[in-house]
């Protein structure tokens, strides 16, 4: 596999198809993306971000990747300009007639390769969009670029073949069928009994319950402590709740379409809505998964009419926060004596506004909660976002560590916490690697896990 602009290659040749002629189809797909009918979902911010960047470079001042290495290829404007230059050259009067003046450039196959690879080096954390004086969103342009690439058949297999498509076929992106899923639940019940010393039944596929809890299905295998913790908390709250198996439809909260395709996004969210309706739950609770919450809480709103979604959507963070406040669950912070810090996942924080809930939960259930800086809306993306946490090909894990992980590792070292509390699966995947890679003397934990540990029964 040839290198494109540095030593990494997240998109393999099988995905990128560098031997094919792709420029004409790219331009056709881009033309369609510039139509307010074909691309109504993000037409306005897309157009505004294509046309109004002042090239002041404020985005670069806050981009964790650019600040880490100061390599020009990671400059947010440089990246977004890969798309802007095409827009100007082929779709504007000045760019068509005076390209040199505005920096418009012809698209070549080589440039298309670089664009594709570069657009999968940004987690779309939107820290840059938050500080842009004109509120230009280079992250959105990256996502729009990925949509165009997907339309011509270029999308990472981790997100599409083994992501959205597997999820739509099997009910979850892990490919676990119902028998395997149910075995896993039994195993988790036994595990809880072994570690906590009490029996707990985890309800599955119960119809008409108040709460349908949908986790990121990857959590069942990779972060089972979060799943067990949530079960303990729901059990302690004494509420009517259930998990669901693939038999009922989709049992995975993830929606990787969010990262690269509105078409895939819509299909997945429709399947999730159908499943929730079928089970007749009053509230769909999104487990510890940042992008799933953003998708089901916000992006769905203008996509699917309210009457077609006859249920409430809540994050497990909102519920635990309410239950602690109401005294429905009781927690003893001395059961979590180690210093704990919280990492604001981009999707929960900047993109969904859940800043206070996790903090209130952690302050109630841990003895020594301390902030890492910067935090909240200025939190650094850990590098697991946009599905990156599940991408490893082409030495990509090393990229995630060296370009994103380093700054996070430094933040943790500075704050002296022994536990990093995380509310998002992608963050957990990334922190697992960061802790190993930088040999940090800390462990990570899900919020549910910490709350379960502090429960007073």
């Amino acid at each position: 596999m040839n290198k494109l602009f540095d030593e990494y290659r997240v998109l393999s040749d099988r995905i990128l198809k560098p031997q094919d002629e792709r420029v004409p189809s790219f331009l056709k797909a881009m033309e369609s993306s510039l139509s307010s009918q074909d691309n109504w979902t993000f037409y306005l911010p897309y157009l505004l971000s294509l046309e109004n960047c002042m090239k002041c470079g404020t985005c670069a001042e806050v981009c964790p990747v650019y600040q880490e290495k100061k390599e020009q290829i990671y400059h947010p404007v440089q990246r977004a300009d890969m798309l802007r230059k095409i827009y100007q050259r082929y779709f504007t009067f000045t760019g068509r007639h005076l390209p040199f003046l505005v920096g418009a450039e012809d698209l070549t196959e080589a440039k298309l390769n670089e664009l594709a690879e570069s657009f999968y080096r940004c987690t779309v954390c939107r820290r840059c969009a938050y500080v842009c004086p004109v509120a230009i969103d280079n992250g959105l342009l990256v996502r729009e670029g990925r949509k165009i690439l997907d339309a011509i058949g270029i999308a990472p297999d981790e997100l599409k073949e083994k992501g959205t498509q597997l999820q739509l076929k099997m009910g979850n992106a892990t490919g676990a069928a119902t028998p395997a899923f149910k075995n896993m639940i039994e195993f988790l019940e036994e595990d809880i009994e072994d570690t906590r010393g009490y029996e707990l039944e985890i309800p599955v596929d119960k119809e008409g319950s108040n709460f349908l809890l949908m986790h990121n299905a990857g959590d069942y295998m990779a972060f089972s402590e979060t799943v067990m913790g949530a079960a303990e908390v729901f059990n302690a709250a004494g509420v009517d709740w259930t998990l669901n198996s693939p038999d009922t439809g989709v049992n995975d909260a993830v929606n990787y379409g969010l990262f690269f395709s509105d078409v895939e996004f819509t299909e997945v969210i429709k399947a999730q809505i159908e499943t929730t309706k079928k089970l007749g739950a009053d509230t769909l609770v999104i487990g510890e998964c940042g992008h799933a919450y953003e998708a089901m809480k916000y992006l769905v709103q203008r996509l699917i009419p309210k009457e077609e979604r006859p249920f409430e959507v809540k994050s497990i963070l909102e519920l635990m926060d309410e239950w602690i406040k109401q005294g429905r669950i009781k927690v003893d912070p001395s059961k979590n004596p180690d210093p704990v810090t919280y990492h604001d996942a981009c999707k929960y924080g900047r993109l969904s506004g859940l800043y206070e809930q996790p903090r209130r939960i952690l302050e109630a259930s841990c003895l020594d909660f301390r902030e890492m800086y910067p935090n909240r809306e200025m939190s650094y993306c850990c590098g697991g976002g946009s599905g990156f946490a599940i991408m490893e090909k082409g030495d990509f894990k090393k990229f995630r560590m060296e370009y994103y992980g380093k700054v996070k590792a430094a933040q943790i070292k500075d704050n002296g916490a022994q536990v990093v509390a995380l509310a998002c699966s992608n963050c957990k995947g990334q922190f697992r690697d960061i802790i190993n890679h930088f040999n940090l003397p800390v462990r990570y934990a899900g919020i549910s896990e910490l709350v379960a540990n502090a429960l007073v029964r």
Partner: protein
Amino acid sequence: MNAVKYFVTDLMPYMTAAIFLLGFYWKIRKWAKSPRNLHWELFPYPQSNAEQIGELIVEVVILHSLFLHNRKIWLPSLAMHWGIYHGLIGLLLLTAGLPRSVLFGFAGAVLLTLGALGLIIVRLSFKELRSISAPQDYIQLVMLAAIGLTTLTSNIPVQYLVLKDYIRGLASFNPDTAINSAIFLPLLLLQIFILYMPFSRMSHFAAKYFTYHKVKWGEPQ
């Protein structure tokens, strides 16, 4: 020369105004008629109208984002923007026949010149800015600096009364062609820049309404 002068002073202002207004109408209409995009706001955002207007004023007056996150271009950018604000206030005062128009006009031209030149220097000095800049990025700064400089060298205080009559004449569709040739150059440059605005990202001041109100700021919660 007389024909050129007549065109620039007597005809072009109306063409400029018409093209400016039509251009902006076309652009703003396109943005305003866009389908409502999916939620894409960033948290936290100001909730009430008062909070939103407050944030808007702080951003416009002191360029708060640049101050916080991009200090190296903040001062020249602030000078340039304040130059434009002062120039506009000066023109308004002049047209209304109120005092201090010369002071505002002069301060505006000084700030605009210094700010635009400062931004050119900053843009050339930093590699990361140089590499994202196209000729257009320099040309528009040079144009602004040239407007400021030619205004200063046209000796505006001396031209004050002439300019006042000229603007009033324009406003009453009866331009005073006796305008001094010293004002000719800044007038021409200013009009070229105004013509350029709607068709370039110099319309960012209008775009900001949409990027903030329709995208970055969500609904009150």
